[in-house]
């Protein structure tokens, strides 16, 4: 019963964030002519919102599993919801509020990282595979910081504080590249824990690294690969993130009792909300490419 209440509460948070955000966005008058900058900013909004949504659900499930042992475990839920709402509302959201939420998300992510590192270091065995596999995941809170950073970038871009040019595009490409790489490390660790028992588990540790590499090429201005190729890898990464939800749903089905035993298997099976973090980061990467093209605007 407590499980159901928690599930309803988190879904409520999610729905409120989405509806609130979209309602605000809806009230905005369409600009006379959408510039690439607007497009890029909006794309960043979507990236940040997707990432924050993934964090919201993932931390809800994992922290519920950890019985919300202390109050700090509620923080990512609150911050990720706020971050999602402000990202979705886009330009309608007052700048200060947007900046505030983004900074909060960045800080909460860093604090989470600290907590998770502390949690591992005090466990028997310390920095062992056992604890890397089963203690609080080291990399996960980083996703919240990334959602904050990307949200901030969207905000700055839209307000004009940040030019939509080659240099900004490169900086953003570097951010997305690093973010994807961090995500890859986390996914590799957890899929290694699962012994890559399904060949599909190799997908998210092969496609996104390629995207990350391509983005890195863009960021350092290597001239290769082309924007077009990079875009292809990013779309593939975004699709991998979405397909991951389906694969993880299949994984839940393979646990004892399958979906009939959802209240247990959603907690113990592969995490449904985790893979779309790739999608969020890939969308941010796509936005960076758009900015790179801005000179033609």
């Amino acid at each position, binding site marked *: 019963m407590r499980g159901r209440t928690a599930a309803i509460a988190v879904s409520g948070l999610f729905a409120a964030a989405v509806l609130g955000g979209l309602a605000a966005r809806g009230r905005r008058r369409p600009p006379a002519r959408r510039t690439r900058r607007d497009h890029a900013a909006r794309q960043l909004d979507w990236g940040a919102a997707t990432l924050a949504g993934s964090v919201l659900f993932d931390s809800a499930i994992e922290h519920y599993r950890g019985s919300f042992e202390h109050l700090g475990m509620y923080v990512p839920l609150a911050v990720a919801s706020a971050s999602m709402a402000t990202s979705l509302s886009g330009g309608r959201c007052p700048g200060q509020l947007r900046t505030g939420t983004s900074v909060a998300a960045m800080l909460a992510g860093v604090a989470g990282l600290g907590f998770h590192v502390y949690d591992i270091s005090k466990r*028997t*065995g310390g920095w062992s*595979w*056992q604890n890397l*596999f*089963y203690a609080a995941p080291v990399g996960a809170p980083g996703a919240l910081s990334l959602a904050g950073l990307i949200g901030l970038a969207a905000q700055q871009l839209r307000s004009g504080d940040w030019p939509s040019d080659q240099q900004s595009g490169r900086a953003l490409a570097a951010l997305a590249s690093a973010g994807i790489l961090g995500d890859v490390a986390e996914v590799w660790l957890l899929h*290694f*824990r*699962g*012994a890559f*028992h*399904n060949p599909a588990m190799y997908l998210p540790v092969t496609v996104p690294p390629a995207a990350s590499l391509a983005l890195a090429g863009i960021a350092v201005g290597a001239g290769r690969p082309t924007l077009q190729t990079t875009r292809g890898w990013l779309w593939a990464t975004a699709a991998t993130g979405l397909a991951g939800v389906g694969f993880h749903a299949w*994984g839940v089905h*393979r*646990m*004892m009792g399958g979906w009939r035993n959802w209240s247990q298997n959603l907690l*113990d099976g592969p995490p449904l909300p985790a893979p779309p973090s790739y999608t969020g980061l890939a969308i941010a990467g796509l936005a960076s490419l758009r900015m790179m093209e801005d000179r033609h605007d």
Partner: protein
Amino acid sequence: MSDDPMQTPRATKGRAPDVFMPGGWVPMREYREDEKVDFVIVGTGAGGGTLACKLAEAGFSVVAMDAGPYWRPLEDFASDESHQSKLYWTDDRIVDGLNPLQLGSNNSGKSVGGSTVHFAMVSLRFRPEWFKSRSKLGYGFDWPLDWREMWAYYREVEDALAISGPVNYPWGPPRPRYPYRAHQLNAAALALAEGCEAMGIPWTETPIATLSAPRGRARPCVYRGFCVLGCSTNAKQSALVTWIPRAIAAGAEIRDLAMVGRVEVDRSDRATGVHYHRNGNWRFQRARNVVVAGYAIETPRLLLNSASDRFPEGLANSSGLVGKYITVQSNQAVWGTSDKEIRSYKSPPSLALTEHWNYEDEGKDFHGGYCYMSQGPEPQLWANTLLSGRGLWGDALVSEMQNYNHVVGLKMVGEMLPQERNAVTLADETDQYGLPIPCVTYSWCDNDRAMIDHALGFMGQALRATDARDIWEQTDDTCHLNGGARMGDDPRTSVVDADCRSWDIPNLWICDGSVFPTVGGVNPSLTIQAIACRTGDRIAAMARRGEL
């Protein structure tokens, strides 16, 4: 017809139970009794089940018989300790000697899949030197096997069972990575780890035959901890859900509720088949080769019960060693009460272990080695332990049981030394089939006692280094019976050769724990299965060369 698998055989009419589906069936090839099959195998446990698979996959016609029922774990196993005692071999046996063994739950099983249906899944490799313990370590007997060859067969078994183990194993020569990753440690395992760290010795996650991720139609472990009473999720990689489905798919026939009473041998001293009891009748299955794999008590018993004019002392017994040198492992424990909630009964019972005293030879006043691991007794077993180990009863027992959630313990698996006086012989009494029952004689030697003292002392110190208090010693427990038909290089001092082929009767093979000359300080099932894999390969090679 009744669907009670303990009353009516299930593997009939060209089909066998599908262990992965309640009420399900898989097609199974059947052989006529007058058809001379290539191999009839007695027993389908760690030895027999594995060999049935290997031989069937090599293209031989195989009939494997088991006295026990053919379970579908998903529908037949209950969360009830008393009910699940249906998995044990509890036919009458007599025990004597200075330290009579307690037989039943902690020894042998009676099921298709043998004792692996209710074993604790700990899957360890021998220390390489143990295969030559006489020449390398100065005690026991040498095996006719080379550890490097065994290393490859261990790998084959670990793959077949998708063993979950640590990323790096701290002891012994390098081994490939375990196919599946280690499980999350429970509090009982963490207590072991804490103790080891305090004592300055390494520990690790136990390599264990239960899935940490899905595999085929088997589900991953749900950490309910009912393992030694039969796993109702199929996470446990017993012979019943691994080797036997493979054997059937490759054309083997399994006959459940088929108790073999006698191996028949003709005038030219070749085995011709087995007499077995099924559906209320004695029957005869013809075969070109007979493999006995009934566990260290039933294997010698069957060989002795098959005595004939030409072999008055029993089959394969020209050395006089059938039934001799049976060797158990010491299974003493220290227990305590933690302030923390341990709930040791959650998760497979032995998730962490140390093999330190298997690999360290300095500072020991005894031969051989031991490992020790974390424990997770189910409530009835725990009440029994309190009764037998501390004599608690009535109010005292009830009040001590209140601490059940806080119990934490360490238990050894120690190498006892093989002694000729420890033996399986035949008693005058007979069982429900009219067959003479076995008498199992066991006495510890000084070395056994010295090792137990060392282990109890060390484990006690380790447990004291955690927050456990009220520490006490469980001094009288044994497990894992092996030997009784040992392998060797010399027909005068062994029953079978390295290929598990009996010296006396060339088409009679013995392939289970009874071929162990020594037991080592680790649980035996991985070694039994590795030997069976090797035997399967050797038989196929001999057949190709026309040497069968």
